[in-house]
């Protein structure tokens, strides 16, 4: 059977499963559409949250980022998991007790202001739309690589599938497909990792393999990797980082950004009780950790495998002949994600760190520049081929990558459409809309959101990668602090909250735009995006634009408290509302207004 046929069976089979679930889990009421009826088992919700949260970025890109950056990129591992601790203790149980359908719902009611609700809607839509573009383009790439259709065609297929289960089933359909998608993606991620860990270390558990002995050399795996990359002029894989301030702020931005992302928060509205919301956050992190503990092992092992492929006799001996390169390199060359240029015309593939510090060694060895450029994103996708695994593992990876992208896209689309139908239409424009009318409005806004997301996926703004930074920045600087103050302070009032959200939002956007271009338009950046140009850059402790979300959050808190202190405290009924979200008794199920 050809690889194409195998991929088709795996991807087609998983899609048939999602559609079957969609037909079975149709939503009949707004409550089913927004919060899956409020009766989802906490363990199952944890699994759905894991799929909702782990996107194409976690599945495809993260291991590649860690492989390239080594210890320095541990920030992604800590940042994208630590947020669940904040969710479990600072947000989820109280918002579940509040018992409404959306995030702007809480902000609008707690800060007794349509203005606050609309600012929250705006933040939610900007954050979620920027995030969904990445998922759609990710799905398009996976399709074009594995199913040999154009990426536009792939995108349309993906959009139709999501349309079917998200528009029909709302949160109810999305919940059960996400559970199925989690199972597909975690199997797809771990199977190749287990094989590779066995091959390199003899340990079948990748997280343990990472800290085990490299069978071939008898050295610890990480020490071996350090040695190999050092010989080629790269920084040690495990080397420490100098700018620790930026590392801390970046990790913190990812953590509070994670906790503030609306599509993750609304998943906790679907469980029956406040106690379940707490357990569910724990289960979500367990399911996420299965992938996140495997990813650093995949990262280091894949990098070592790649180096061994290119330097079969070790980094101090000759590199491989281009004519003798393995098949997987040929496949990926056609996608343009691996590029080879024979700069010294010796017919071999030299890979090394082309820096002035290594120039003398390179000249001595007759090298004339690094000859192979490997895109980080192919690491996970090409992993089974690099490790010579059978064809069905490749089919599985294709289905897994698509599951990761589609599950996150569906969650984001639900957050967007419920903000429009529930907060914008029912909450502000047409409060007397009927239940049936609102359900129809929710379905239509979901349909429109899918069309817009597909269009953006086909015509991705050149800045797609950078906009993810914006999504986290906005969630961290505007949504998270507003929610937290709404629960933990009775003193923060409507004016304070709005001023704080705007201050956090604007300061973060401006700081990002200064370095990455105004509204991401290429060539409009005020400063070059280099460490010495960043705020405090001259001290060696510059703050990168990607790390600014944490600073924006602090600005939000400071402004909100100051403005609130200077204006009248919230009315008694609001203070009673805050009191009531703090105590689980009387939670009942998520209710409509």
């Amino acid at each position, binding site marked *: 059977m050809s690889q194409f046929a195998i991929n088709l069976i795996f991807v087609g089979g998983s899609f048939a499963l999602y559609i079957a679930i969609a037909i079975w889990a149709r939503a009949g009421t707004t409550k089913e559409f927004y919060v899956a009826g409020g009766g989802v088992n906490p363990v199952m919700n944890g699994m759905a949250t894991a799929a909702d949260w782990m996107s194409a970025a976690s599945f495809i890109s993260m291991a590649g980022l860690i492989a390239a950056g080594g210890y320095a990129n541990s920030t992604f591992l800590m940042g994208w998991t630590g947020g669940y601790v904040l969710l479990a203790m600072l947000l989820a149980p109280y918002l579940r007790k509040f018992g409404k359908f959306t995030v702007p719902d809480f902000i609008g009611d707690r800060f007794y202001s349509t203005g606050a609700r609309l600012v929250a809607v705006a933040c939610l839509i900007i954050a979620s739309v920027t995030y969904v573009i990445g998922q759609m383009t990710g799905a398009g790439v996976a399709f074009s690589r594995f199913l040999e259709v154009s990426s536009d065609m792939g995108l349309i297929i993906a959009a139709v599938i999501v349309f079917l289960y998200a528009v029909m089933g709302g949160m109810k359909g999305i919940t059960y497909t996400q559970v199925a998608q989690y199972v597909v993606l975690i199997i797809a991620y771990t199977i190749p990792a287990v094989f590779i860990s066995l091959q390199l270390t003899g340990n079948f558990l990748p997280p343990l393999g990472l800290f085990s002995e490299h069978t071939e050399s008898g050295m610890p795996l990480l020490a071996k990797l350090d040695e190999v990359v050092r010989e080629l002029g790269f920084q040690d894989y495990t080397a420490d980082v100098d700018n620790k301030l930026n590392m801390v702020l970046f990790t913190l931005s990812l953590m509070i950004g994670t906790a503030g992302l609306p599509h993750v928060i609304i998943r906790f509205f679907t469980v029956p009780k406040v106690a379940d919301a707490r357990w569910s956050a724990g289960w979500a*992190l367990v399911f996420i950790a299965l992938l996140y503990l495997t990813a650093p092992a995949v990262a280091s092992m894949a990098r070592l495998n790649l180096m061994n492929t290119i330097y079969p006799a070790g980094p101090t001996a000759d590199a491989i002949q281009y004519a003798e390169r393995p098949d997987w390199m040929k496949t990926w060359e056609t996608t343009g994600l691996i590029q080879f240029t024979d700069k010294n015309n010796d017919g071999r593939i030299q890979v090394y760190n082309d820096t002035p510090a290594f120039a003398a060694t390179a000249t001595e060895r007759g090298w004339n520049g690094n000859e192979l450029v490997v895109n980080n994103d192919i690491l996970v996708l090409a992993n089974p081929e690099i490790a010579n695994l059978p064809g069905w593992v490749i089919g599985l990876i294709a289905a897994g990558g698509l599951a990761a992208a589609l599950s996150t896209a569906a969650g984001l689309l639900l957050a967007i459409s419920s903000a429009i139908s529930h907060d914008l239409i029912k909450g502000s424009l047409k409060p007397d809309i009927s239940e049936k009318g609102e359900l129809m409005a929710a379905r239509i806004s979901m349909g429109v959101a899918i069309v817009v997301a597909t269009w953006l996926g086909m015509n991705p703004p050149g800045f797609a990668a950078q906009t993810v930074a914006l999504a986290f920045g906005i969630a961290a600087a505007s949504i998270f602090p507003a929610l937290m103050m709404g629960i933990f302070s009775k003193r923060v009032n409507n004016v304070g909250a709005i001023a704080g959200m705007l201050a956090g939002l604007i300061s973060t956007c401006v700081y990002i735009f200064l370095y990455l271009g105004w509204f991401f338009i290429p060539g409009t950046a005020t400063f070059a995006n280099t460490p010495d140009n960043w705020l405090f850059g001259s001290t060696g402790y510059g703050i990168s634009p990607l790390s600014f979300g944490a600073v924006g959050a602090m600005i939000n808190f400071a402004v909100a408290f100051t403005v609130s202190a200077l204006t009248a405290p919230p009315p008694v009924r609001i203070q009673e509302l805050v009191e009531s979200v703090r105590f689980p008794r009387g939670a009942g199920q998520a209710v409509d207004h």
Partner: protein
Amino acid sequence: MADHTKNAQAYWRANLRLIIISLAIWALVSYGFGILLRPWLAGIPVGGTDLGFWFAQQGSILTFIALIFFYAWRMNKLDKEFGVDEE
């Protein structure tokens, strides 16, 4: 009613105390052991590297899971003790 309010305040204080302790551990394992204190942990070898690296790539995630389950277990117990649980 006065009794109820006093009880409610005690419950909320207990919750805040638990959160502060948990978040102190949360920060210690990630920002502390994983990032800022790594040079001080450099002497403790773990599989070809040091303890700080382990915390940054695995230890902090495992601690986060333990923290959430501990918090959920403690809080669900406190809910009952203070009589504010859901019937």
